[in-house]
């Protein structure tokens, strides 16, 4: 069976994400994305934060088939933990190296 293909998105956050807040941020992000994308489609997207770059950017991995829904989900996400926020998809690539170079 062939390895499933993935897409990596470079996402910039409007608000800073400090190192001690990252585990909680990750959990809240997945919860809100589940709300935006829906239970039916979430498993086809399967988002996962791969790494943080600085205090306001991170690399998000998803299945290739769910890439468009993830971009839309991030666009719809305007509130996280009661605070106003925004996420901008800066770049997308098949590898993390191409994304962060």
């Amino acid at each position, binding site marked *: 069976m062939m390895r499933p293909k993935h897409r990596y998105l470079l996402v910039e956050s409007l608000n800073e994400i400090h190192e001690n807040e990252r585990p909680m941020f990750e959990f809240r992000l997945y919860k809100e994305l589940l709300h935006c994308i829906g239970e039916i489609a979430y498993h086809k997207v399967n988002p996962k934060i791969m790494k943080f770059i600085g205090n306001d950017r991170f690399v998000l991995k998803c299945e290739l088939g769910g890439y*468009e829904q993830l971009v*839309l989900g991030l*666009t*719809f996400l305007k509130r996280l933990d009661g605070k106003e926020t925004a996420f901008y998809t800066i*770049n997308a690539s098949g590898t993390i190296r191409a994304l962060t170079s």
Partner: protein
Amino acid sequence: MDFYDIVMPSCEFDDKFAKRLGLKGIFKCGADIKLANADKQSSFPEGRFIAVGSNKNNLIAAARAGAAAVVVSDSRIDRKLMMELKEQKTALILPTTLITSSYNLERPKRLYMMGRLYSHAKRLGLDIGFATMAESKANMCSYMQVIQLARLVGADESQARHGVSAVNPSIVD
């Protein structure tokens, strides 16, 4: 292909941010092109301007007065307005902020109405631009996000890209 966005006068941003979003330029209403509120005024500035509002009679007057583009705030179809836009060759801007700034059941309702408006405008052959018309940095989007929102409304990939890359700058120039 270069992508452009149009934002409201209250939106503050810097050029580096625009570049990070993948946009060649962000046009600000009020600075790069005049803005007219069609709900509050029935007389319009000279030269090119964008008319925003839900009062259909005032929007028709704006198109006749030389508006470069029109934003229908409530996304409702008015056949008389659409025909006037076609006759005056006025572009129609579909603002993505209407979708991203709404919540819960309001959002699918707005998506549905904007989809119907887009479909009607496309059938008539109008120039359709997709812009955020953001009032703050939180409502701004990268070019990838605007294109995906355009596709959600009913445009295909080439129409969405055309709306963001060709129609938006032609409204301001």
